[in-house]
């Protein structure tokens, strides 16, 4: 199969003044893949992710997201992706249903679509009775699961997850990953960053960024073999220790 990669980058670079935050990274992600995007603090992950989401213009290099160009078609990109992070997710002072309505509205979904899908979503999360509760009153783990559901509500092709499980308890963390798997099985591509090394194992492939470059990219098993390491933790430590720069 010669299916076009859903994320494609070639020598993608971002410079701020004389500081090269992202240094000519090239990689591809296939449709339906769970792609782990790792790196130490300040390695350039956030900057790279911003370019891929169409939030920041690259300095040079090429990239297409779902077939759309990151220079010219950022509006198209935004229609086709979902985004969720630990820091920014839902409005705490709106109810669950209001949040869903709001986000679905941004993507121009029809009322019928929103109604059906909301019912379905609440059922999946066992929240049928709680649709009118304020999001602020939910426990963190549930909030994060809800935020994920909202991020994929408009059926995007790719969803970007920036440390989605930070501080979440181990049981909920796994439930969260279960949702990721289900979304991936349904054909949504997952692009995820995390500080939990066990979660890196759940990804199909992982890239590790060091000093703005992608230093390694392989399956978890492949990486462990290449670096002769027992755990992903070891692989990460070996690579990240090479870093010479620190984040500003």
């Amino acid at each position, binding site marked *: 199969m010669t299916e076009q990669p859903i994320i494609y980058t070639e020598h993608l670079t971002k410079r701020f003044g004389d500081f090269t935050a992202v240094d000519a990274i090239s990689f591809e992600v296939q449709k339906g893949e769970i792609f782990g995007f790792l790196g130490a603090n300040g390695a350039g992950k956030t900057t790279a992710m911003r370019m891929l989401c169409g939030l920041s213009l690259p300095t040079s290099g090429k990239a297409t997201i779902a077939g759309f160009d990151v220079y010219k078609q950022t509006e198209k990109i935004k229609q086709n992706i979902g985004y969720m992070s630990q820091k920014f997710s839902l409005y705490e002072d709106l109810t669950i249903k209001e949040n869903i309505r709001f986000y679905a509205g941004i993507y121009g979904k029809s009322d019928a679509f929103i109604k059906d899908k909301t019912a379905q979503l609440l059922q999946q999360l066992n929240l049928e009775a709680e649709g009118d509760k304020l999001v602020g009153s939910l426990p963190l783990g549930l909030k994060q699961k809800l935020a994920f559901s909202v991020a994929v509500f408009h059926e995007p092709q790719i969803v970007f997850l920036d440390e989605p499980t930070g501080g979440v308890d181990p049981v909920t963390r*796994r439930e969260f990953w279960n949702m990721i798997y289900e979304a991936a099985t349904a054909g949504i591509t997952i692009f995820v960053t995390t500080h939990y090394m066990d979660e890196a194992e759940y990804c199909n492939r992982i890239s590790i960024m060091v000093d703005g470059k992608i230093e390694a990219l392989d399956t978890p098993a492949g990486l462990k073999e290449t670096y002769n390491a027992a755990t*992903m933790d070891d692989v*990460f430590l070996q690579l990240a220790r090479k870093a010479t720069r620190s984040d500003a």
Partner: protein
Amino acid sequence: MSAVAVHNLVKQYKSGKAIIEAVQGVSFDVARGELFGIIGPDGAGKTSIFRMLTTLLLPDSGGATVDGSDIVKDYQAIRQKVGYMPGRFSLYQDLTVEENLHFFATIFKTSVTENYTLIKDIYVQIEPFKTRKAGKLSGGMKQKLALCCALIHKPVVLFLDEPTTGVDAVSRKEFWDMLRNLRQQGITILVSTPYMDEASLCDRVALMQKGKIMTTGTPQQIIQSFNHNILAVKAQNMYGLLQVLKQWNAIEDAYSFGEYHHVIMKERYDKKVMRQYLASTGYADADIHAVTPTIEDCFMQLMQHKHD
């Protein structure tokens, strides 16, 4: 006398009409010179406990002493002798590394030179950047500076609230190495973290969830009290394997764990039974072996018990 003695501590917050029970009757003791970890996810009540022990919050009921001083009555005495690093980065961003350190030394009525030996190992790592503003440091270096500032007056007890949250694996490891060194210098350290794997680096830990301590002990004790067999299983199709395992009535629980799935077996069932079951469901190639539980396994089991 314990360095920290906590007895039935309770803290509630009002949020609109609802009352949030952040800490629901927590008790534990920390011996002198111990490195004690409070492990739990966000919202477990860790920060509330730290704030009560550092006299920033008043408990609703129960009490505690720090180095023999009562957290309510003797709050001024406690403020003289503890070091505290709150969860958020708590230095002056527009002051340089050096200025921050000297400022903290002065307000604790000491000088940088007086206790330099204590912070020397950590400070030499950030000394090359001493004229840089704290706001311009990397996450790992900020953390080191914050630790230096919290140590500068040679505190009897050091409170570190989630020092490693949001920090990458390399910096986390370095930070824990520093803590172990400090412990050898006789400082009692209380540290909180949401990362289960950091539990094994503490002398003793309390596992917390939803305002309650589920268990307290050394990491070994907690692991030994885990009373089931755990098997680690791996196959080509991990997601399918998990579905199959979850349908099996011979198990208590099954969940992913790094590159393996961990399967908690009911009594009487072992590896052999599992191999047969998996063969019958199309996973004959599965790699199965027994593992020792980790703190994370224990934490999850304790959580399930609470659900029941």
